């Protein structure tokens, strides 16, 4: 037993000794392979846009295993931890889908610095675009989605989902066949989804859902009739103002959905064609909606991308919008002067007016009062939030939650009132637009516009505004705006003086007011036309174009003049 005990003690001692001895040796080995040097740098594309998710490797020349590897972050930067023992020849390779690979041979001094454990910053790397099969596939998918939406062949959301699915199918199923078919993976796609936009729209939808059930729109429309005292020209102007203000505070589609039926009824009671009031209303809705950040989905997109606050839109766009509204009011008075005159001879149906008066009342005054109080607080936060870095999406969500808690409506109804299809549409749209951005289509367009405008800011203002306005007459302005954002971002960096972000306001003006150029130019036009047609007053494409396109020319011209005056003459940015 004694001998056996000594044996176990010996074995234990040896094991412990071995462990103790092994420890320093293990440390020494670890030190030998531990990364000590740091190799950093930044990767751009040829338009000076940061390139994220590029694979960066440090390796000896030839097809060898990398000694260190990392990926660029969202700010385009990379940091390679390099081992201390390095060969005498080293290369840094940068690989990114849709770009030409770059191989940099490190000089002896750099390698020595790394061997000495010193950090090294490499010069900025510029990657050149590579046009592959994926470029054409993503481009076709994007155009296909626009066509499906423009021709109404699929619901907007279905069109975007279809586009997104094709992009993923090609990326995942095509990559095993050829790397050139890869566009991006799921993680890469999610980088392009702007959650600020999604949550801001969702929050505002809840607020709108409460407001729209209060009867406020019906009351406002009938109040407009009362104030006008039978003067149709005045009624038209007041209705345009009401619609404009409502569109700036809510959204154009909701405003027109609620204003159109009551307007039709007022027009019928007055014995005039409803189109004489509806067309001016919807034109005003498209023009005035852009006065605020939350007035149109396109402004929400622009505001989030360009970091423009609620106050930025109010101060930089509202005067231009007011100017455009004055022009629009004069125009509509002239265009519909015969209808307005004819109405003077027509009689007002007292029976119908009684019925209207009966219906035009606030149905939920308590909810309206609470919504007004919450809305006022939201307005304060939208305006003041910029100073405390409170993003509009958070304000909208807080406001919506406060309103729901305060009035405690049927939550199921409120959830139903959120337009989930629109939110899904935005997610799908972001991914499809992200795909064309990823493969370089947006860069190609930006290059072309950039070469055309050169360093001429005035030309850039005119081109962005009118290009957006005219294209928005034929293609849906939300996908168009989403695609144009990186283009305008590029021009903002490259055109001297554009750092004031004037071109983003040009995009806002063009994409929203351009919606007046055709019936399919804006969703608000479509819903107004749909309701009007169901009241027996069809609003044909030709009719809308005849009335709307001159309005586009007038309002966009006036808004362009304002932008030129405000940004190029009154407050020119120092290049």
């Amino acid at each position, binding site marked *: 037993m004694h001998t056996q005990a000594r044996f176990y003690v010996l074995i234990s001692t040896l094991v412990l000794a071995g462990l103790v001895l092994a420890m320093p040796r293990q440390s020494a080995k670890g030190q030998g392979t531990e990364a000590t040097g740091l190799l950093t740098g930044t990767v751009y594309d040829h338009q000076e846009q940061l390139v994220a998710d590029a694979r960066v490797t440090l390796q000896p020349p030839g097809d060898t295993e990398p000694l260190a590897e990392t990926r660029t972050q969202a700010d385009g930067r990379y940091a390679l931890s390099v081992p201390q023992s390095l060969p005498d020849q080293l290369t840094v390779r940068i690989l990114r889908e849709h770009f030409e690979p770059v191989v940099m041979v490190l000089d002896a001094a750099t390698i020595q610095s790394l061997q000495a454990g010193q950090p090294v910053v490499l010069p900025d790397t510029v990657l050149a675009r590579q046009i592959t099969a994926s470029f054409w596939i993503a481009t076709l998918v994007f155009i296909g989605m626009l066509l499906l939406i423009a021709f109404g062949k699929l619901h907007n959301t279905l069109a975007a989902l279809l586009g997104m699915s094709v992009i993923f199918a090609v990326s995942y199923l095509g990559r095993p066949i050829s790397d050139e078919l890869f566009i991006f993976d799921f993680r890469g796609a999610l980088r392009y989804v702007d959650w600020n936009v999604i949550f801001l729209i969702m929050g505002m939808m809840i607020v709108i859902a409460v407001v729209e059930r209060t009867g406020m729109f019906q009351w406002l429309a009938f109040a407009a009739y009362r104030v006008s005292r039978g003067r149709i020209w005045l009624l038209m102007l007041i209705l345009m103002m009401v619609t404009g203000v409502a569109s700036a505070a809510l959204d154009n589609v909701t405003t027109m959905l609620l204003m159109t039926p009551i307007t039709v*009824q007022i027009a019928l009671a007055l014995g005039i064609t409803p189109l004489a009031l509806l067309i001016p209303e919807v034109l005003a809705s498209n023009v005035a909606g852009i006065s605020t950040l939350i007035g149109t989905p396109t402004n929400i997109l622009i505001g989030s991308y360009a970091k423009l606050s609620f106050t930025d839109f109010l101060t930089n766009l509202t005067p231009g919008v007011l100017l455009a509204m004055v022009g629009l009011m004069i125009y509509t008075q002239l265009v519909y002067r015969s209808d307005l005159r004819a109405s003077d001879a027509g009689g007002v149906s007292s029976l*119908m007016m009684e019925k209207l008066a009966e219906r035009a009342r606030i149905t939920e005054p308590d909810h309206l009062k609470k919504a007004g109080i919450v809305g006022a607080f939201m307005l304060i936060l939208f305006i003041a939030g910029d100073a405390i870095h409170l993003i509009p999406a958070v304000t909208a969500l807080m406001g919506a939650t406060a309103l729901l808690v305060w009035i405690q409506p049927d939550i199921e109804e409120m959830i139903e009132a959120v337009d989930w299809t629109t939110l899904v549409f935005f997610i799908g749209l972001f991914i499809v637009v992200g795909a064309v951005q990823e493969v370089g289509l947006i860069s190609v367009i930006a290059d072309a516009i950039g070469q055309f405008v050169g360093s001429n800011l005035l030309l850039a203002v005119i081109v962005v505004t009118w290009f957006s306005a005219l294209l928005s007459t034929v293609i849906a302005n939300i996908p168009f705006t989403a695609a144009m954002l990186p283009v305008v971002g590029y021009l903002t960096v490259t055109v001297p003086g554009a750092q004031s972000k004037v071109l983003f306001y040009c995009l806002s003006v063009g994409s929203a007011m351009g919606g007046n150029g055709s019936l399919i130019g804006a969703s608000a036009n479509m*819903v107004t036309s749909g*309701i009007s*047609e169901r*009241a*027996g007053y069809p609003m044909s494409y030709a009719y809308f174009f005849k009335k709307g396109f001159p309005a586009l020319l007038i309002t966009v011209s006036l808004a362009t003049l304002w932008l030129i005056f405000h940004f190029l003459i009154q407050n020119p940015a120092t290049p």
Partner: protein
Amino acid sequence: MSGIVCAVRGGPASQPTVSRSIALAAETGLPLYFLYVVNLEFLDHTASSRTHTISKEMAEMGEFILMAAQAKAEAQGVQAQGVVRNGVVAEEIAALCHQINADYLVIGQPQYQSDDNIFTAILHDEFIRRIETQTGARVVLPEE
């Protein structure tokens, strides 16, 4: 129960249909029902989730349109009721004809040049045959 159903859409194009139904009611002495169908298919491509919000407004607009038709009938000594329904136009017309066991259905002529018209020429003829077979109501078109 029996009577005349007149499907009304509103607007100038509906006036001949309304007039024809009033004249028919005056001739036959049958009760007259003006029907307006709230159909929200136009929202499918733009704001499909807003149907809850808009359907009440559209129904009120429909009542208003029917009120004008009823006033016109009353001016000619004919009492008429207004009926507003939600759904597919052709189905709702058929349903009301069934419900009141209609003798006549007065509907407008399809405007062939309009893409938005509920009935194309073929569908219009098919609909007339179906209504006459299923409900026994005779379909009357306004004179052109």
